[in-house]
C-alpha cells in the first residue's frame, strides 16, 4: 500500500508532525483514496509504517464515521438528516435518493454497484438544506426534484 507515490505522499505528511502516529488520519485517507475503503489488512499495513499496532488503528478507524469499514458503491452519497435539514425536508430527499439510485435501503449498495446512500449527522450547511456529499462533491440545496438529475450525472460518470 505505502509504496511509490503513496509512500512519497506519506513522507510529506510525516514532515508536518512531531510523531509518526499523528499521520494516522491522513494515512487512512490515503488508504481510502486508493482502495475505496479500509480493509483489515490495510489497517495492519498502516500500523506497520506508523509504528503503532493494528488494534490501535482499528480503534481509530471505527471512531471516525467517514472511514469505510466495508466496500461501498462507486458513488458514496451522504445525506444530512439532522434537525435543521429535517425541518426543511431532508427525509424526502433521502427517499428520492433511494429511489433514484435503486438502493434498497440506507447503507446498502445499489444492484448496479453504482451507489450507496447513507444518512449522516449534520454536514454543517444547515442554511443550505438539504446538503448532500457525493464522494468528495458537496452539493447544497438539494430537493427531491433535483435528485434524479444529480443521480443521473453520477450514474453516467459525467459529474
Amino acid at each position, binding site marked *: 500500500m505505502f509504496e511509490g507515490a503513496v509512500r512519497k505522499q506519506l513522507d510529506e505528511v510525516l514532515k508536518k508532525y512531531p510523531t509518526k502516529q499523528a499521520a494516522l488520519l491522513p494515512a487512512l485517507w490515503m488508504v481510502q483514496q486508493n482502495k475505496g475503503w479500509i480493509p483489515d489488512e490495510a489497517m495492519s499495513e498502516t500500523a506497520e509504517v506508523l509504528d503503532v499496532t493494528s488494534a490501535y488503528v482499528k480503534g481509530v478507524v471505527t471512531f471516525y464515521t467517514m*472511514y469505510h469499514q466495508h466496500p461501498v458503491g462507486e458513488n458514496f452519497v451522504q445525506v444530512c438528516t439532522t434537525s435543521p435539514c429535517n425541518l426543511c425536508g431532508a427525509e424526502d430527499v433521502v427517499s428520492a435518493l433511494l429511489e433514484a439510485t435503486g438502493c434498497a435501503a440506507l447503507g446498502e449498495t445499489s444492484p448496479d454497484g453504482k451507489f450507496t446512500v447513507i444518512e449522516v449527522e449534520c454536514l454543517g450547511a444547515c442554511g443550505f438544506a438539504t446538503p448532500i456529499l457525493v464522494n468528495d462533491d458537496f452539493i447544497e440545496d438539494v430537493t427531491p426534484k433535483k435528485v434524479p438529475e444529480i443521480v443521473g450525472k453520477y450514474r453516467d460518470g459525467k459529474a
Partner: protein
Amino acid sequence: MGYPHEPHSKETVVLSRYFGDKSARSYDGWVERGGYKALKKTLDMDPAAVIDVVKESGLRGRGGAGFPTGVKWSFMPKEKNKPHYLCCNADESEPGTFKDREIMRWTPHAMIEGCAIAQHAIQAEVTYIYIRGEFTEELAIVEQALREAYSDGVLGDDAMGSGKKLDMYIHRGAGAYICGEETALMNSIEGKRGNPRIKPPFPAAFGVFGMPTTINNVETLAVVPHIINEGAEWHNSMCLSNPKSVGTKLFSVCGHVVKPGNYEVTMGFSLGELINDLAGGMREGRTLKACIPGGSSVPILNKEETENCILDYEGCIEQGTMLGSGGVIVFDDSADMVYQIMLLARFYAHESCAQCTQCREGTAWTTRILERMLAGKGKTEDLDLLLDLADQMTGKTICVLSDSCAAPVVSGIKKFRDEFEAYINGSREPVLVHG
C-alpha cells in the same frame, strides 16, 4: 441564502465583507483588500503587546464558550522552552452552525492571517488547521491559500521577512462531531480517537503532543487582523447592549425562515430582528414557535423568549440559553418539537465518544424514550424519567456533549410539554420513526 448577495442594511460586515467575492480568495486578491498588513505589523511587535491588544479589544471566543481570547493567549508560557502550538478549530459541526465554512470558502487568507498573528502572539511555530472531513470544498480552498501563503513568503522559515518561522498545516477530520471539543481535537491531531481529555492539565500547559497549545475558532482568528489594523478600541466599541460582548458576530440562521443564511451583526443585536428582518421571517401563513439561538447544544427558546432575546453572551443567558456558536435554528408552528428533539438526541447519541458512562448510555437511552414516545408508546412517567436522565447527564462528564443532549430535552419539555403529552395520551397520531 448563498453568496453572492447584498448584505442587509442592518448587518455590520467585517468578516463577511468579501463573502461572495471570488477574487478575495487569492493571495493577491487578499493583499489588494488590505490583507497581511496586520500580520506584517504584528511580526514587528512584541508577542505580549499583541496579546494586550487582543485583550483590550474585548474579543471573546466565537466557537461557543465565549472565553476572552487575549486572556486565553496569555495562559501560554512566556518563557519558551519547548514547542508551542496553535490549533485553528475548523471542525464546524454544531447543528445549526455554518459560518466558519463561509470564512474558509471566501476569505481563507483572513483565517490564515489571523492564525499567523495568533501564532506569533503565543510563540508557536506551527498551526494545525483542523478542518472537518466533510468540508471538501473548504479543504481545497484552504489548501490552495496555504500554498500561496508559502510561495508568497507569508509563511515558512522567514515569514514576511521577519526572520520568524511560521508553519501552518491542515489536519483533515474524518467524521466526528466531538473533535470540535478542544481536547478531542488535539487527540485527533495526534492520530488518536477523538476522545476529550480530562482537565487539568489544560492545553496551555499540556496540549497537542504534550506541548503548550492554544485552540481558537476560525471566526475568532479571522477577526484578529481587523483588530490589529483598526485597533482594540474600534472592536471594543462595537456594542449594542452589554459592554462585555463586543464586536460583530456571524449568525447562521436556518430552519423555518424564508432566507436562511449567514448574517453578521454587532453584538447585542435583537434575535427577533435577525429572524424577521434579515432572515426574512416565517414562510407564508406560518408563525414562529421556537428557536435555538446558539447551535443545537443550547436550551430552546419559545416565541416570546426568542423575540425578547438580545444576541450577546449575557442577553442569551438572560433568556435561559446561550449564545454558543451563533447557530440559530428556527422552528415555525408546523414543527413537531418532540420529533426535532428526538433528532437532536439522536445526533448526540451518534456522536458520543463512548468514554463517560452517562453520555454513552444516557444519550442513547434518551433517544430511545423519545422514539418510543413518537411511536405512540409513551408513558406518563417518561417525562420525569427524561428530566431525571438529563439531570444526570448534566455537569457530570469529561466534556459537555451529554449536557448538550440534555439541554434541548429539558428546555423542550419545559416549554412544549403539551406536545410531549399529546403523544403520550394518544391525542396525537404516532409517527413512523426510522432508526
